[in-house]
């Protein structure tokens, strides 16, 4: 059984039209399809049908995160393993979510829903699939986002979810923040060669901290900030900064329903067999430097306010 990669985030929004304008004009994703309940978006450098779904709701937050598996038979194995671990599992039939095959929805101990699936319809790269145009088109609208990189989900105690993801789904923990008693405050979990595909941080169970869009350079993050300012998008008080954790250049901002987004660049690669590469450890008294390296401080609202 193997999860091949993080695929998409399905976020709840309170105004679908405003969400479509934000994720296309500002963030720079392609609108793939939409109806009166959902809109599907994809970044320029992914072939699959979507990397973001926005679902109309009476609240902001995360509906579920989607991960792809290597083989259709992995879905059966994953469902059995999650059930044996005591987690709620349900089949998601073909057609429930556009652009992808059937899957299994697993409710993690953190009360977040994780959907595993095998097949995704292909829409191709933005530059084309036959004699393509390399690089970013001169007609590009919005920020130069290459892909959706990861989400940070909030929960009261990350340990049971970290245990499940590492012991059952073969994730690696690349970095973690621990208190003096050894309890996990935050954990950065990877199922690929990237530093994190899914992170867990402090907050009420089932809540959404952010999803991060990857870019190719620090310069593109700076250009992205200019677009956020021009479009009057609310951003974190620090503006552009650097995380000590992963060392990335970053800015946080909010979609029209208040869901936190991030533009970022510069995470390291983390190859290695799951469980054999030790994680970086941050003591909680150094967490401010790990979170915001230049400021060495965390604004209280950064973890207090989630959607």
């Amino acid at each position: 059984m193997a999860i091949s990669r993080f695929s998409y985030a399905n976020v709840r929004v309170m105004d679908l039209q405003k969400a479509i304008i934000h994720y296309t004009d500002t963030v720079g994703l392609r609108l793939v399809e939409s109806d009166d309940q959902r809109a599907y978006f994809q970044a320029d450098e992914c072939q699959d049908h979507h990397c973001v779904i926005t679902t109309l709701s009476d609240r902001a937050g995360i509906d579920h995160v989607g991960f792809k598996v290597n083989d259709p038979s992995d879905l059966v194995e994953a469902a059995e393993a999650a059930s044996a671990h005591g987690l709620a599992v349900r089949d998601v039939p073909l057609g429930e979510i556009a652009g992808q095959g059937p899957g299994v929805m697993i409710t993690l101990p953190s009360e977040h829903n994780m959907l595993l699936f095998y097949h995704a319809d292909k829409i191709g790269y933005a530059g084309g699939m036959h004699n393509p145009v390399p690089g970013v088109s001169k007609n590009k609208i919005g920020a130069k986002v290459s892909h959706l990189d990861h989400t940070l989900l909030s929960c009261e105690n990350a340990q049971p979810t970290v245990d499940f993801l590492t012991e059952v789904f073969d994730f690696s923990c690349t970095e973690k923040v621990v208190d003096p008693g050894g309890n996990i405050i935050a954990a950065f979990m990877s199922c690929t060669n990237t530093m994190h595909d899914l992170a867990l941080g402090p907050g009420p169970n089932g809540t959404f901290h952010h999803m991060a869009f990857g870019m190719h350079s620090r310069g593109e993050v700076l250009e992205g900030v200019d677009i956020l300012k021009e479009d009057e998008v609310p951003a974190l008080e620090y503006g552009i900064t650097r995380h000590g954790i992963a060392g990335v250049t970053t800015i946080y901002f909010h979609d029209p329903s208040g869901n936190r987004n991030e533009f970022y660049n510069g995470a390291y690669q983390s190859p290695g067999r799951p469980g054999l590469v030790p994680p970086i450890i941050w003591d909680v008294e150094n967490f401010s430097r790990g979170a915001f390296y230049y400021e060495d401080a965390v604004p209280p609202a950064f973890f207090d306010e989630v959607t």
Partner: protein
Amino acid sequence: MTYQVKLQHTGQPSVTFQCRPDQTILQAAYDNGYLLSSTCLRGGCGACRAQLIEGAVAELAPMSRFHCQDPVSGEFKYRLLCVASVASDVVIETDRPWQTRRKNPLSDRLPG
């Protein structure tokens, strides 16, 4: 046309100011020198949640129902001031304290 907003929070002296029906209570507070707790400014995160004690408010944009609920009982309890405006004079109890803001910090430094 404006309505009066009275803000209160335990341990803080209450303050009053005027708010137009086309602006958010958060913005009117800011314009009058009061910095309310806020983060997303889009009705999603709940940082600006407050209880309506008297009067009526209007929603200029949707409020996340998750953050309008009491976290324990689930009852509808809070309004989010970043997207709420006034439909009458109101009395509001904020969940978080507010800070005061100097209105013209630069002009204070300019020579007379």
